[in-house]
Every structure is written in C-alpha cells, then in structure tokens.
C-alpha cells in the first residue's frame, strides 16, 4: 500500500515538473522558431529563412539600441554594484543610527510600481531641469538596481561568522586589509550575482526607460515594446532570439562559475 503510494508520487513529481517546464519554455521556443519565418508577419508559418537576422545586423537603429542597452546595463550594474556593496558593508552590523530608515528607503524601488517611479522621475527631472537621455537612464536604472545588490550582499554579510573578520584583525591585519583580504573575497559571489540580477533588470526595463529617455536614445526593450504594440515582426523575433541566446550564455556561465566556487568552498568532508 505505502509502496504503491510512494510509486505514485515518484511518477507524479517528474511529470508535473516536466509539464510546467514545457509550458514555461514553449512561448520562448515559439519566439525562436518564428524568427526564422519567411513570412512578413507572425500570423502564419511560411517557410524557413535567416533573412531577418541579416536585416537586423544591417539595421543601424537596432545596433544603436543594442549599444545603448549594453552601455546602460553595464554602467547601472557597475554603479549599483559599488554603491550597494558599500552600503551593505556599512549597514551589515545594524549599529549605524538611521540605518534601517536608509535601508528601507533604498530598497523601496523594489516595492513601488515601476509606472509610479517612472512618472515621479519624469516629473522631478523636468522640474529640476535634468536632461532626459542616457544620463537620466543611468541614474534611474542605478537606483532600481541598488536594492538587488544590497540585499544579496547584506544577507551574505549577516550570515557570515563575525569571528572570521575578527580572526584576521587578531592576526595583525588592519581594518582596510581585512576588507581587502577577507570581507570582499567572501562577499564577491553575492556581489556578482547581485550585479547580474541588476543587468537582467536593466536590460529588461521598459516602463522607467520609457519615461526618462529622450527621442534620440532608445533601448532594446523599448524597440521590442514599440514593435510588439504594432503587432510584431519577425525582425523583433530575431532580436529577441539574440537576447535570449545572450542570457542563456550569461546564466550558464554564472551557474558554472558558482558550481565551481561552491565545490571549492563547501566540498563535503568525505
């Protein structure tokens, strides 16, 4: 009886997992497949072609959008990495006055609808006279990327045995040296995963970018969004496929790196 039931669960679990995963990936697969559709619209499959990729590569506007998105994601994740990590180190012990207020304020963008933030930025930037465009994009993206780095790094720091840093001091290292030799290497995986999240968030953002960008500066997701609103073209599919490929490579690499460092740090005793 019990055996039968266990068997039932053994069968149910993989079937369920597979089913959900198929549903999760099916739409992504569709985007990829239809990027090779020779038809002018996505309405029907009309044969195989790689034309859309060639067109994409020859499209100067697309190249510009890609360049903008990469610069934006790179700068925002970089700034957020530094700002969030420093903030996490500074706030990790909870002794700073007003620390929890600053923490709540800095992580608030995660909890506010993007639309509201976007309009708030547009309103303030216009009122104060900040020029819309790349600089405004970097500032706003950095702001909503900081929480991802901060939370990741802080939870790593809080989970760390304080004795490890104390031991380094005890062995003769100055506070700055401890930061360099011990703290930063130990929180590095969290910094990197936080920054990668930041890249994902920035490269994916439509709403806030929509508000603070200028007519001359467009980003990939904005391109995709305008393309989709007008029904979608195989060119958009091709673009999306390339974005997907890039993300698969990034995630694959990061998982590989993580698995390797985990193996080194947490290898079982046996």
């Amino acid at each position, binding site marked *: 009886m019990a055996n039968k039931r266990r068997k039932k669960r053994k069968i149910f679990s993989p079937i369920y997992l597979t089913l959900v995963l198929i549903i999760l990936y099916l739409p992504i697969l569709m985007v990829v497949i239809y990027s090779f559709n020779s038809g002018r619209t996505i309405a029907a499959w009309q044969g195989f072609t790689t034309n859309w990729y060639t067109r994409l590569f020859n499209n100067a506007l697309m190249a510009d959008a890609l360049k903008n998105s990469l610069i934006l994601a790179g700068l925002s994740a970089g700034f957020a990495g530094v700002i969030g990590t420093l903030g996490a180190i500074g706030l990790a012990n909870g002794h700073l006055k007003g620390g929890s207020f600053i923490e709540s304020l800095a992580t608030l963008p995660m909890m506010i609808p993007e639309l509201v933030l976007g309009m708030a930025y547009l309103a303030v930037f216009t009122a104060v006279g900040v020029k819309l465009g790349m600089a405004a994009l970097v500032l706003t993206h950095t702001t909503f990327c900081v929480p991802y780095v901060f939370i990741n790094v802080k939870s790593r720091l809080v989970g760390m045995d304080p004795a490890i840093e*104390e031991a380094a*001091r*005890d*062995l*003769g290292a*100055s506070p700055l040296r401890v930061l360099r030799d011990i703290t930063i290497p130990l929180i590095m995986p969290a910094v990197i995963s936080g920054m990668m999240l930041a890249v994902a968030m920035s490269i994916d953002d439509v709403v806030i970018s929509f508000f603070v960008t200028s007519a001359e500066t467009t980003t990939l997701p904005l391109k995709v969004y305008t393309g989709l609103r007008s029904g979608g073209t195989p060119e958009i599919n091709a673009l999306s496929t390339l974005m997907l490929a890039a993300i698969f490579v990034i995630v694959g690499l990061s998982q590989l790196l993580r698995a390797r460092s985990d193996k080194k*740090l947490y290898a*079982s005793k046996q």
Partner: protein
Amino acid sequence: MDEAMSEVLLSLKHISKNFGEGDVLSDVSLDVKRGEFVTLLGASGCGKTTTLRIVAGLETPDTGEVILNGQDMTSLPPESRPVNTVFQSYALFPHMNVEKNVAYGLKVRGADKKTIAARVKEMLELVQMSDYAGRMPAQLSGGQRQRIAIARALAPQPQLLLLDEPLGALDLQLRRQMQIELKRLQKKLGITFIYITHDQEEAINMSDRIAVMKGGKFEQLGTPEEIYDRPATRYVAQFIGRSTILTGKVKHTNGFSAVIETGNGSFTVDSAHAKLTEGEMCDLCVRTERMRASKTPVEGFSLPATVREARYAGGSVLTYVTLRDGTEVVAEGVERMADAPNPGDTVYMHWNPAQAAVIGGASYGA
C-alpha cells in the same frame, strides 16, 4: 620587585564592561605569569568570553587597564597586540587553503616569503597536519580545523595565546586527546595560554591556575588543587565536582580545628584556612569521593543517616543516604557491592577533616 614585574606577562586591572544591560564584567583583576596556563571557567554568560575578547582587543573595557609586558595596551587595536586567538568557531578563512590560513598572520606583518614558508611548514608539523597544506577548510574534519586554527594562531609567535572553548565542538574522545596535545604543545613552546571552558574536568586537567567566574566576577582564583579541595564559595563548591554541602553554626574553635553543630548532629573540622569565629554560620563542603559511610560511629562525627540505596558505579560503590533532616548525601569508598550497607540500615557519615573545605566568615552565603 623587578623580578616580579618581569614574571608577570599580562595584568588586567579593575576591568569593567557593560553592554547596556547590566555589567558583563565588574572590576575584574588578574595577573598572568609568563608561561602559565590560566583557565577562565564558568557557566555561559559569566563574562569569560568578554574577558578574553578584551585581552585580544576585540572589545574595549569601559574602565580598567590591560597591561602586557608592563605596557598599557588598553586602547591598542587587536592587530597591534602580540596576542593571538583560537576562536570557538575556529574562524578559518574559508576561501584560503590551510597553508594560506596559517601564513596569513605572517603575511600581513610583512614577513618575507622564505620565512613564511619555513614557519608554515614548522607549524603544520607541530600540529601534525603537514599532509593537508593544500586543502580547503571545508575539506577538513572538526578536529583538523581545530589544529589548523591553533597553528594559525601560533604562527606569528604571539606572547600570549587566547583559546575560546577550542574543544567545545569536538566529541568527548577527541576532546580528551586534544587536551593532552594542547598541554604538550604549551609546555613545549613555553607560550602563555589563557583558556576558556565551561568544562570543569578540562580546566582541572590542563591548567596551572583556574579562575572560576560568575556574574562578571572572579569567584575564586587558584590552582586546580586549591579550587577543588578548598572552594572559596558555595558556588565554586557546587560548580566543580560533586560534593555535599552541610550548613551549621561554629560551636567552638581553637584556631586549628572547630566543632560545627548542624541540625543533623555535629562534627569536627580543620579550620586553619577558614579563620572561623565562634557563633557564626558556615558551610562545609565534602567531595563525594571523600564522603564515607561507616556502619559504626566514628570519633569526632555524629552524623547518623539512613541508607536509601547502594549502587555500583564501576570501581566503587555509591551509597545514597538521607540525613535526619532529610538532606540527601552520597558517599563513596566501598569497592564491592558485597561490602555495601543495605537499604534501611543506619550508617554514620564521616570524612578526613583535612580534606573538607570550610566556607565561613565573609564568604559564607556567597
């Protein structure tokens, strides 16, 4: 005077520390001699770890001074003190291999590569971990991590080694083995150790002197023998070993011996150490293994009791008796069950007066 100065390595003077919720340490003073093995013993929360952290510089005292080699170190940061610590959690750097862990203290102090390599090799040999130089801490067992933590702390040649319950996480057998090894190491290197434990057996086995702590104060500071045989307070008597404590009034004393009268009868004690005065209350502490139950009355003692049970305890028999007022007492001494009294028998409790401690005067009730 000069000689006495150089003999003392570390001296804590009137150290107090308060974390905002009452004193963790209040007015603690301690002199540690060069090459000495001093143990701070006490239950958790007694202030022993805070004392150690103040010596290491990981905590600053509110008042008082930490003096090492005659120099005031109270406000020196931990990296500037010639003192190293073996942490309770070992605190090995998880991202460095064994070799780099042990080398770290030398590296930050700017030693050259050759010196570091030689010293690391020497340290790993000392703790018998030479084969593990390339391993990561996660690949080591608890006992092995412990050895590396000790090697790492010893590598910069500290004048004083602080050990915070270093054996706490190990199982009993490994702990006994490490006790012996640590003691051997300390003797061999001649380094002064301050050792923290809550395990009284460990403290007695290893230490030159023990400070029993309670509520941020030293209850008693003395050699293991003094602590065991002459507990200064009731707390020490109860915390260390198993003993019976009898409370009574000093009936009369001649300075060397005194007669104590209790509700259960009276007995004679050695009072040379206790300085008793007639009429005052005092506690008498007798270790279980020194308490005897005789089938016939013994001179100087009139403590009749009823046997409840006799139980074989491996090598000796424990006799559980009840005194007249209901106090329960355990006696040892008989080696075979055949010699033990039967339940319900009346026996007479006694002991060697020289081996019992009297806690009287100012210490009474402490």
